[in-house]
């Protein structure tokens, strides 16, 4: 029985053209930024190469890799308990917590970094609060510690959301067996549920690691010099395009290597149930006396990652308005943000389905090659991807240049892996035998995929789409560079104001950004609840 299902979980042979063609198309599109970087990198002079081939570059590489590791580890440690508490226990107000804990994802990192510095800096708000106790100065947060803290608190929802998408597909029968065999709630979680969540955890971790690689806002404010810092330093002043290209290529190589680590550690395990019968709705564990520690943990994370930042924004708003700062109506920006983010979310999550099916059902060299390539756009700094699309579109695709279509295209390149990870993780939990059954009943393989696999993978696909929605809401460089003339969103108006120290005028769109983003999350969570009961 085991043997048979192990063989049949990986289908032999070629994927149908309806899967293959879009998957290859995605791969080719993802190569656009890379080919731009190679074109520009070839212009590099000897001095540029010399600049790069110095021991200092190795130090930067080490620093970059170290930060990727610390942020990923911290994010997983935050997300696993949060995911379990909000989905599988009777945690009070679990729906509210479910929404609140993913919201840090919409805080742009240049705002988040600034807020963390003003809260936790040596003479920040925390120090002021502690000053009656005689605390004159807090230890410096700058460097690895500050960068890790900021990036983890802003990006842990990548892991949290992917886990939540997968938890819902877990078959409670396994956990029940475990408990029947004498394991307690906690042991069951660690020994039975957690291993099943491994694909979701690694998919989310990969996103966090690559996001860390691409981030500039937080590392610059926390004074931690990664490769992206080097790239932005060029955009700030002398604009040596060949140097930018070479450093970006290194970022791409790091990204591909990271994805390789993930692909190899993912292994050949099976994550779907092989026995007969369907998964039932899991029962929620009673936290009992653990309720209060659990609530304390939730409150602590929520305070640090969203409540304190939002409160500082609110404080800026009130302070500025009382000092007579004018506020403008931002209805138009709000509409722009929502509509492009929705379009990006729907497009990206639909496009992720063929490649995800190919990776899970028809694994092989081609599938893993396309998968690796598809992560490059996410790992490169947004400005590099945007400028590469300027090069192609302004010169070879003028009709779509500076239109919404190119912008959505850019979002797909930038955020594709977030959707792919969630879709893939949920497909892994679906037994291919269900499709086989459908085919044995006379369905074509395409129809089987459409009527069996996709509906079952639905929650994962929707979860992927919602991640894309949230991060498109805060996207800045591509929106500014590729948006049509005069196009502005909440994120661009936050930047426009914050960069010139108009704090009150930055706070309003930032708060609207957070509030608006919580709506789709609330809907999603409410729907989840409906499914459970």
């Amino acid at each position, binding site marked *: 029985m085991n043997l048979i299902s192990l063989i049949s979980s990986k289908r032999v042979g070629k994927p149908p053209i309806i899967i293959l063609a879009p998957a290859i198309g995605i791969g080719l599109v993802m190569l656009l930024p890379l080919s731009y970087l190679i074109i520009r990198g070839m212009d590099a002079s000897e001095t540029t190469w010399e*600049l790069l081939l110095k021991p*200092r570059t190795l130090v*930067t590489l080490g620093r970059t890799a170290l930060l990727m590791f610390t942020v990923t580890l911290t994010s997983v440690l935050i997300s696993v308990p949060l995911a379990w508490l909000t989905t599988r226990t009777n945690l009070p107000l679990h729906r509210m917590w479910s929404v609140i804990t993913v919201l840090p994802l919409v805080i742009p990192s240049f705002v988040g970094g*600034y807020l963390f*510095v*003003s809260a936790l*800096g*040596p*003479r*920040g708000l925390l120090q002021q609060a502690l000053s009656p106790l005689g605390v004159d100065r807090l230890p410096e947060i*700058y460097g690895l510690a500050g960068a890790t803290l900021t990036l983890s608190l802003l990006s842990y929802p990548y892991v949290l959301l992917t886990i939540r998408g997968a938890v819902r597909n877990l078959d409670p029968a396994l956990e029940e067996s475990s408990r029947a065999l004498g394991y307690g709630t906690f042991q069951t979680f660690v020994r039975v549920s957690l291993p099943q969540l491994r694909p979701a955890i690694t998919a989310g971790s990969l996103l966090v690691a690559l996001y860390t690689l691409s981030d500039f806002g937080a590392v*610059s*404010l926390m*004074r931690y*010099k990664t490769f992206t*810092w*080097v790239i*932005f*330093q*060029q*955009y*700030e*002043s*002398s*604009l*040596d*395009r060949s140097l930018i290209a070479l450093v970006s290529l290194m970022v791409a190589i790091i990204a591909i290597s990271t994805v390789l680590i993930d692909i190899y550690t993912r292994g050949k395990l099976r994550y779907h149930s092989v026995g007969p019968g369907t998964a039932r709705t899991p029962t929620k564990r009673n936290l009992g006396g653990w309720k209060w520690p659990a609530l304390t943990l939730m409150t602590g994370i929520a305070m640090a990652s969203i409540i304190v930042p939002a409160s500082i924004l609110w404080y*800026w708003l009130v*302070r500025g308005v009382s*000092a007579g*700062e004018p506020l403008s109506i931002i209805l138009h920006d709000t509409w722009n943000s929502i509509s492009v983010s929705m379009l990006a979310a729907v497009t990206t999550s639909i496009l992720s389905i063929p490649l995800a099916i190919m990776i899970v059902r028809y694994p092989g060299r081609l599938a893993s090659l396309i998968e690796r390539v598809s992560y490059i756009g996410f790992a490169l700094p947004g*400005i590099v991807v*945007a*400028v590469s699309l*300027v*090069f192609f579109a*302004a*010169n070879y695709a*003028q009709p779509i*240049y*500076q239109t919404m279509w190119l912008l959505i295209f850019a979002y797909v390149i930038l955020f594709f892996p977030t959707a792919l990870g969630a879709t893939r993780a949920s497909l892994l939990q679906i037994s291919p035998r269900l499709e086989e059954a459908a085919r044995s009943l006379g369905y074509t393989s395409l129809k089987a995929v459409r009527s069996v696999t996709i509906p079952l993978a639905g929650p994962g696909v929707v979860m992927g789409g919602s991640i894309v929605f949230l991060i498109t809401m805060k996207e800045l*460089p591509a929106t*500014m*560079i590729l*948006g049509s*003339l*005069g196009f*502005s969103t909440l994120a*661009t*108006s936050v930047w*426009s*104001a*914050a*960069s*010139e*120290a*108009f*704090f*009150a*005028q930055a706070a309003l769109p930032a708060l609207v950004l957070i509030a608006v983003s919580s709506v789709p999350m609330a809907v999603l969570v409410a729907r989840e609840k409906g499914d459970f009961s």
Partner: protein
Amino acid sequence: MNGFIAKGFGALAIGMMFLLGCGDSSNDSEDPASTVTEVSPGNLVIYSGRSEKLVGPIVNQFQEATGINVSVKYGKTGAIAATLLEEGTSSPADVFFAQDPGGLGAVANNGQLSPLSSTILDKVPAWAKSDKGLWVGLSGRARVVVYSTQNGVSPSDLPTSILDFTDPKWNGRIGWPPTNGSFQAMVTAMRVELGEAKTKEWLEGIQANNPKVYPKNTPTVAAAAAGEIDVGFVNHYYLHRFIAEEGEGFAARNHHLTSGGPGSLMMVAGAGILSTAKNKSNAEKFLNFMLSTVAQQYFTGSTYEYPVIEGVKANPLLTPIVDINKPKIDMASLEDLAGTQNLLRDVGILE
């Protein structure tokens, strides 16, 4: 679904055209004289490396005054310059409005700016424009030392030259943004005025005093007010923004380095016209407008910058321009930042 949306949009477009058409014809019948000589004032596309919050209001005034249909792309100066470089001859932009001479220099060096007419160039003093006549400064910002009143620093504690901050008594008390374009322009000015060796000596002297590094001006000024640093090397106008937000209680102030030299450099934000501009005459109108008394008063009144034309007084909140002992350095000599970056890398300040 797609078909439905397309049909919807189609119907909407036809409806709009119908409505607009009706509007026009009714205007005609009411006032036939107006249709005879009216010529459309046309379009203008501006790429702005300056934030909408700073220049949006004056761009709107220009649009209202001239009737020209202005579209603006806002972004960071570096990102906008990179966009222009990649667009090359396909660029839809007419005007590039940049935060600093560095961004203009990068686009000019790629042969993408066209020489300006003498009516525009003559309005601006020689120090504030490109030596080849490719761009002009539109507003000035002074390099200053922001000091922390939170930490009880008073102007009498401060030296009159930036060179004196290498004194060990400033150890651990300085903040600076070494990646910032204006900061690098100041170092470039120092290289021009004092030579490579002296500039390197100064950079190493400051490094020895363990300066705190900030990504740009705003957090440096905030750090001074929070008492995280005693002094910071920044542009002058951010302080005034903070005071506008937080009131007079904001715990930092500006200090001008009166003995002159690169520490009291006056920088400009400026603009040039793209050589591929499709609306050249409107672009010229725009630059002329930006150099008018109205626009120059807007800059000094609302964004706390210095006017660049004669006859407009600086905002009374600012130190008068005559009291700033600015060095005699042309902005054009600050365009090329590559040498400065190499020096900063040698000293280990940049990566």
